[in-house]
């Protein structure tokens, strides 16, 4: 306990010093003037000041506030010592910042009791101050960590700018971090995917799961995987990552390039609804599955619901934070409320819906994250032009000799090779069909010399494949070369096939009747390709697909 005694009279100082020493306070300092007191206080940092009021240079009333200021946040008791006993003078002592006063002549017992009391308060203040500093330090650390995590989330969970404008949406987390997820990516075959989901709970703990989900979803969208494959994979990832009491309710949706065909997987989310411009609910995609991250891989059900909407119809989705929104009277909003807003006002914006939900909530606290999305059916073909396509011209050539022809069909492997190039995924399905058709023609008719007429009857259809197998197993010579080239300028894929067979009269190929079980191949590829040409008496064919 360090005490500073400020008095211009040396006798007074001596008396106080003596008295304090006797009372058990040996650590005392003296100052003769106000200025000296301020300088000394700066150096010795007293725990308590005994301050005379009347002094020649600066009086106690001036010194007290300066001492207080110097002490900062920590309580520095200033006790005025004075011979005055009029009310006004004593009141002023307290008004300028003094904490107490002791009148001369001093009563030793009272003075030491006052010093002890103020010392206790100072100790408390020092302790609180230390705790505050620690708290502050901790809070800053947490804030910094949150800022880093927020940054990561903001980067990982951005909506693809290309598909974003097709949605009217609102995300309202209950705290800084959102346990709801809304993502959308263009599909390489045109159209788009979106994922809307809700992790158990809210806040940072439930938001962390969103990171691996977002990355996996974006990667799978880029590959053009089916909705069932995407949900299956997300389930697998979350099963291995999440603790047992945590899971992810989600809808995974693919919207076709026409903008009106939906493929939906719904596990544990509120119904997605299709609303017509007239305000009729034409479809509800109810949750057919358990949420992601619960079922073992073998038990997972990946089946999908499909629906054809009409242009102008709206697909509406929301998280349970919306329907479980509770007002001060503890009533829940419920999904019928939202659907009735949609049916009575089919053009209602998401902003207006959330405005109404806020109004319903009133002063009650928002307990869960809220997500609301709306997509209006429209042509999505412009998304196709935004898909990046490789600038690299490439050629893949495969020469198939007898041993390969007997053993396996190369179509799938070739398609995988081509589609591993940036942007080629969008023609995957057409390319598969075209290569398959051309290859089968070369092999069946060029190499194996099979006659399609066998396929005329239903039994002949199978007979054909039986003979084909027999001839293939006995094949002694023959060769098919498949060469696939890409021209970046024209964005054309050319598929060239040559076989070592006898060729055929391609000018005589005619379209068959609709009921025929064969002879559709060539007309089919003509529709899928930009051009199809035969060369070398039908032994070579060149088909071009526009990418």
């Amino acid at each position, binding site marked *: 306990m360090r005490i500073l005694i400020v008095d211009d009279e040396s006798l007074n100082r001596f008396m106080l010093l003596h008295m304090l020493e006797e009372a058990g306070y040996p650590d005392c300092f003296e100052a003769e003037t106000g200025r000296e007191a301020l300088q000394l206080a700066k150096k010795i940092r007293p725990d308590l000041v005994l301050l005379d009021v009347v002094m020649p240079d600066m009086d106690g009333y001036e010194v007290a506030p300066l001492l207080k200021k110097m002490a900062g946040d920590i309580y520095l008791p200033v006790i005025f010592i004075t011979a005055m006993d009029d009310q006004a003078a004593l009141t002023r002592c307290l008004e300028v910042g003094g904490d107490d006063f002791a009148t001369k002549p001093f009563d030793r017992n009272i003075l030491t009791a006052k010093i002890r009391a103020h010392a206790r308060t100072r100790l408390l203040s020092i302790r609180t101050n230390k705790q505050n500093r620690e708290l502050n330090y901790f809070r800053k650390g947490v804030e910094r960590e949150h800022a880093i995590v927020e940054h990561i989330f903001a980067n990982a969970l951005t909506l693809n700018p290309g598909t974003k404008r097709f949605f009217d949406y609102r995300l309202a987390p209950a705290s800084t971090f959102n346990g709801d997820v809304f993502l959308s990516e263009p599909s390489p075959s045109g159209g788009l995917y979106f994922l809307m989901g809700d992790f158990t709970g809210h806040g940072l703990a439930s938001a962390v799961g969103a990171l691996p989900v977002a990355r996996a979803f974006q990667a799978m969208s880029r590959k053009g995987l089916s909705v069932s494959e995407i949900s299956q994979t997300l389930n697998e990832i979350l099963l291995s990552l999440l603790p047992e009491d945590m899971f992810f309710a989600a809808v995974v949706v693919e919207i076709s390039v026409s903008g009106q065909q939906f493929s939906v997987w719904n596990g544990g989310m509120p119904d997605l609804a299709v609303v017509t411009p007239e305000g009729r609910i034409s479809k509800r995609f109810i949750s057919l599955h358990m949420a992601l991250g619960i079922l073992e891989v073998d038990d997972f059900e990946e089946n999908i619901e499909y629906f054809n909407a009409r242009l102008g119809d709206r697909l509406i989705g929301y998280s349970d934070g919306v329907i479980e929104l509770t007002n001060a009277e503890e009533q829940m909003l419920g999904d019928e409320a939202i659907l009735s807003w949609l049916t009575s006002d089919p053009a209602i914006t998401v902003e207006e819906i959330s405005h109404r939900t806020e109004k319903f909530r009133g002063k009650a606290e928002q307990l869960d994250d809220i997500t609301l999305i709306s997509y209006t059916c429209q042509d999505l073909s412009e998304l196709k032009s935004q898909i990046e396509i490789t600038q690299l011209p490439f050629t893949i050539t495969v020469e198939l000799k007898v041993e390969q022809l007997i053993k396996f069909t190369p179509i799938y492997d070739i398609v995988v090779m081509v589609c591993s190039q940036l942007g080629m995924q969008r023609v995957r399905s057409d390319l598969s069909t075209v290569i398959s058709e051309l290859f089968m023609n070369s092999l069946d008719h060029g190499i194996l010399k099979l006659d399609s007429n066998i396929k005329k009857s239903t039994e002949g259809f199978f007979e054909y494949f039986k003979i084909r197998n027999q001839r293939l197993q006995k094949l002694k010579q023959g060769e098919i070369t498949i060469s696939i080239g890409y021209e970046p300028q024209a964005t054309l894929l050319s598929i060239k096939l040559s076989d070592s067979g006898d060729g055929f009269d391609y000018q005589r190929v005619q379209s068959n009747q609709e009921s025929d079980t064969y002879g559709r191949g060539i007309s*089919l590829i003509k529709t899928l390709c930009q051009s199809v040409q035969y060369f070398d008496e039908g032994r070579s064919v060149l088909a071009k697909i526009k990418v």
Partner: protein
Amino acid sequence: MSLDTCLVNGNKDLIIFMEERFDFDKVQEFRDAYLSAPDEVNTITVDLSNTEYMDSSALGMLLNMQKTMVDKISTFKIINCRPQVAKILKISRFDKKFEMN
């Protein structure tokens, strides 16, 4: 390997689930699948939700099924086509021969 099938609607509806590729490789499996239909079946549904591409022999196989089974089966359906597959079926006018959703 055989294709997944299931009977629904009081064993009256046989659903055949096709795999990723529906082409000539499936001739035998597909035939086995529809020939396995018990007598009470009157509807055959081909589910193409997992099918990424089909070729003309798949079209032939579908027509062949129809021709083979027409005495027994009153309705043939194709469901859950992905857009690319739907395009092939549409080009080939299959929407006229099969009930499609």
